[in-house]
Structure formats: structure tokens, C-alpha cells
């Protein structure tokens, strides 16, 4: 983990509700896809944890949905600087992917899969992606995933674009060696049941600190209590206990 001051290079809408922000600064603490950053905002007490969508040595890209005070404030930012904790959380383990990994994202769970897809494709893996949204005008990053060279399927709950239904409907016809997913918990649960292989799930929880100090985001797993911010947010399928 590192605390750093990042310059806002870009902050632009990708849909009505989802924004992309590009932050420039010291990214040396970021170790890989699936990690998150924790952002301090003026006038708000707790930091805002947001998953990393893409990262190189000096830039972090995040995609965030405007849902409350913090993200509303972020939406209005034009340039300036942010106090950001980077290198948080235990990300996806790429070594388990096999040759044909499947990546499944739902809504604002899509962003961390972008960097993951990029890395897996760079390793020569044949990557398939299923992106699930409620409706057509909420879709983002379909083209970006295609540009990486991934095989992309989009589902919408209302059928306004792509396959009508849930991501699990699109999973049924896919061959895959392993899977990685991130999205709302009901979706994760459905994938847990529908999946034919092992895989990794990225979870979301309200956090106090984001770096393992407060025990605010703990969950029970097969291998003991884990903190979503520290041992998570990514958990392997065999470790998960569904409580809610």
C-alpha cells in the first residue's frame, strides 16, 4: 500500500451514470488486476474504495458509477489532485486461468475485468468475456474489450441489446478452462451455481479503512475469516460461504 497525490488527467462519462477517471501518479504499489484504490474526498470522512480498471507505471484508470455523495462529487471534478491509497487488496490470480478463461462482469463489476483481460491476452490466453447489464444505454466497454482481442458477449435483462437475460444464460453455451467474475452479489451467487469449473469472485463490502485495520468488511470463508479489503476482494470459489 502507498499513499500518493494523483493528478486527474481525465474525468468523462462513459454512460449516463458511469464515469471514467484517469489519475496520474506513482503506481508502484499496484500489483495487478482486481486490486482497488481508496480515494479521499473533501468534506467526506471515509475514503471511497474503487476498483482499478487499468494501470501502467504512471496512470490508473477507474470507472465509477455515480450513486451517492462521494461519486457525485467526483463527477464534477475537472482536473486537480486527489489523495489516493493504492495497492489495496488481493487481486486475481492469473496463474490459474488455463488456456481459455472466461471473464464475467455485471454492471459496475465490469471494470476490474478489463485490465485482467488485457493481462491474460498478453500471456497468449484465449479470453472470452460476458458483460451483463440491465438495459442497452447502461452498456460500457464492449468495444474496448473487443479491441483487446477478447471474444465478447453482451446480455441485457430487458433484451434491448445482445442476448436477453442474465450472464448465466450466456454462460450455458461457453467452453472455458476457468472463470473470473465481478458484479452484484446475486449475480455472483448465480455464477457460483452455474459454473462448470473453478473460478475467482471479486466481492464488494462497505469498508472503513480499506487496508485491513478496522475489521469492518470481514466475511467467513472455508479457510477462516477474511477481510474483503485485505485477503479479498478476490476469493476463490472453493473458499466461499454464502451467508446472505
Amino acid at each position, binding site marked *: 500500500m502507498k499513499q500518493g497525490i494523483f493528478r486527474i488527467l481525465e474525468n468523462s462519462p462513459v454512460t449516463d451514470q458511469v464515469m471514467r477517471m484517469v489519475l496520474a501518479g506513482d503506481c508502484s504499489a499496484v500489483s495487478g488486476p482486481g486490486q482497488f484504490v481508496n480515494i479521499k474526498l473533501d468534506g467526506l470522512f471515509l475514503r471511497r474504495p474503487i476498483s482499478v480498471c487499468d494501470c501502467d507505471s504512471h496512470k490508473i484508470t477507474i470507472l465509477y458509477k455515480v450513486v451517492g455523495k462521494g461519486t457525485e462529487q467526483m463527477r464534477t471534478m475537472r482536473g486537480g489532485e486527489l489523495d489516493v491509497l493504492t495497492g489495496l487488496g488481493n487481486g486475481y490470480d492469473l496463474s490459474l486461468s488455463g488456456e481459455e478463461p472466461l471473464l464475467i462482469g455485471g454492471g459496475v463489476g465490469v471494470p476490474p475485468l478489463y485490465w485482467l483481460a488485457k493481462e491474460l491476452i498478453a500471456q497468449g490466453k484465449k479470453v472470452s468475456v460476458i458483460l451483463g447489464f440491465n438495459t442497452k444505454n447502461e452498456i460500457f466497454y464492449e468495444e474496448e474489450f473487443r479491441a483487446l482481442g477478447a471474444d465478447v458477449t453482451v446480455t441485457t435483462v430487458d433484451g434491448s441489446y445482445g442476448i436477453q437475460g442474465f450472464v448465466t444464460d450466456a454462460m450455458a453455451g461457453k467452453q472455458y478452462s476457468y472463470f473470473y467474475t465481478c458484479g452484484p452479489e446475486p449475480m455472483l451467487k448465480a455464477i457460483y451455481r452455474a459454473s462448470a469449473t473453478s473460478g475467482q469472485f471479486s466481492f464488494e463490502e462497505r469498508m*472503513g479503512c480499506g487496508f485491513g485495520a478496522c475489521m469492518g468488511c*470481514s466475511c467467513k470463508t472455508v479457510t477462516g475469516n477474511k477481510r474483503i479489503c485485505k485477503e479479498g476482494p478476490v476469493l476463490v470459489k472453493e473458499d466461499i460461504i454464502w451467508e446472505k
Partner: protein
Amino acid sequence: MGKVNTKVTLCGIELDNPVVPASGTFGYGYEFAELYDINCLGTFSFKGTTKDPRFGNPTPRIAECTAGMINAVGLQNPGVDKVISEELPRLAKCFHKPVMANVSGFSVEDYAYTCEKLDKEAQVGWLEVNVSCPNVHGGGMSFGTSPEAAAEVTKAVKKVTTKPVIIKLSPNVTDIVSIAKACEEAGADGISLINTMLGMRIDLRTRKPVIANKMGGFSGSAIFPVAVRMVYQVAHAVKIPVVGMGGVSTAEDVIEMMLAGATAVEVGAANLVNPYACRDIVADLPRVMEKYRIESLSEFIGGVQ
């Protein structure tokens, strides 16, 4: 003005400075030791430890508030045996001063059992006995809301321990002074206050409480004035040292707490927002002392006019 003296003595043990990360915001130290040398601290109070392992409350356990936060962690900890066998050896590698052992329980016997075990640990300098956790039922705060129950816990712990016993009190009471006095009479070596204030948030969209446990402990800079008031009241009513806490986030806050009567000052929620908060406060103390013409912090305790 020349060199300032930040040393204070808490229950017979000298601290290099009065800055003490509060229990539950600093784990067992090593998460923070990755970020800075935590030996710059006066000491720290480690995560509240109970007789048996505890997972704590269901999530969500955290809610944002104006100038603060609510937590309902519910004393998640691995239990005293694992704390002794696993956490303390790890702690000893990164922290080389006496540490404050924070203890909670669900019966008088629990408190005595856990304190007796931790009392035997060489690195434990003080026992901070939490009779004020708002997030567990049938334990914690229920011992801190009546003078009789608080005195009973104090007596039981004192009987089986040799190290200074500091009783950590709840602000969620009608008369904190009477409880502090009862602890003093029962043999407490110090009082620490305040634990979090019972609070609640409701999500407008779902119309449900934000916290799964409905209510939780409110902390952060918003509660600082309440904490200063209670520290002042208790420090003027008892002869034993008082450890002040509640919303402290700057060196100025530390000094204000000490003016109110605190011998040492704990810093809680600030660590969660700025992981370097305590290091920064320690580094800033000499500047603030010089600004207010304070040569020695220990001579300044309770100096409010």
C-alpha cells in the same frame, strides 16, 4: 524556546509522547508497521481481545457520517490464546515498547480470565478493560453503564493481575463521573474515555438501517467536543490518570485533551482515513508545543484555567 519535552508517565510507565492509537483502529500493529516505524508512538492499544474467538457482527458494519463514521464490528478477534501465540510474537517484531492490551468480555469471569492471561505477557504494559463496547449484546457496554457493574469488573480484574488496569468507559451513560469514581474506588489504576457514542443511519433508498446490526458506535472528529467535556469532568473527579480519546485527529487536539486532564491521548478513527495520522501527530507535536509555549507536556496535564 529550546527543546520541548513530550514525555509523559502513564501509571508508572514512561511514554516518549502521549500519542496512542486506539483499540480497533490499529489491529495488532503490523499492518501499520509496513507503512512507518510504529516505535515513534507512545504506545498503542491493540485490537479488543476476548476469551473466545469472535467473528463479530454481520456486514455492513460501517456507515459514513458527517465528520465521522459508525462501526458495528462487534469485537472480531481470534481469542486470547491465539492473540498470545500468534499476534503478540508478530507484534513484538515491529514494536519494542510496552503495549496496551485491550480486553472485553461477556461476564465478570471472562474479563478476569482474559486479563490474567495477558497480564503474564512480558510486552503488555497496561490492561485496558473495555466495559463500553456498544456493539455486543449482553456484554461490553452493559458492564460500563452502572457504577456497581463497572466496579465489580475492576475488582475481579485487579485481583488476578499485576499490571496497571485502565478501565475504558462508555459515553452512553447518564453520569460518567459516578462510574469513573466507582472504578477508582474498586482499585482501577486509570480511566480511559470515551468509547464510541451509540448512533444510527438509515438508507433513504432502502429505508433500512445502513448497519446490519441497526446501531453502532459513532466516532470521528464530530465527537471531539463531547470527549473533551467528559475527559474534563472525569479528570477533575478522580485522582488516577485519565487517557482521553474521541475524535482526536491533530496535535492541537492532543494538547486540548491534555489541557482537559488527559495524561495520554488515544487516536482512533483518524487512523482509518489517514494511515499515517499518528505518525504525523507525533511529528507535529513539538511545533504545536512551541506555538503555545509548552516546554513539558507532563507539566501541562489538566492545565485548563
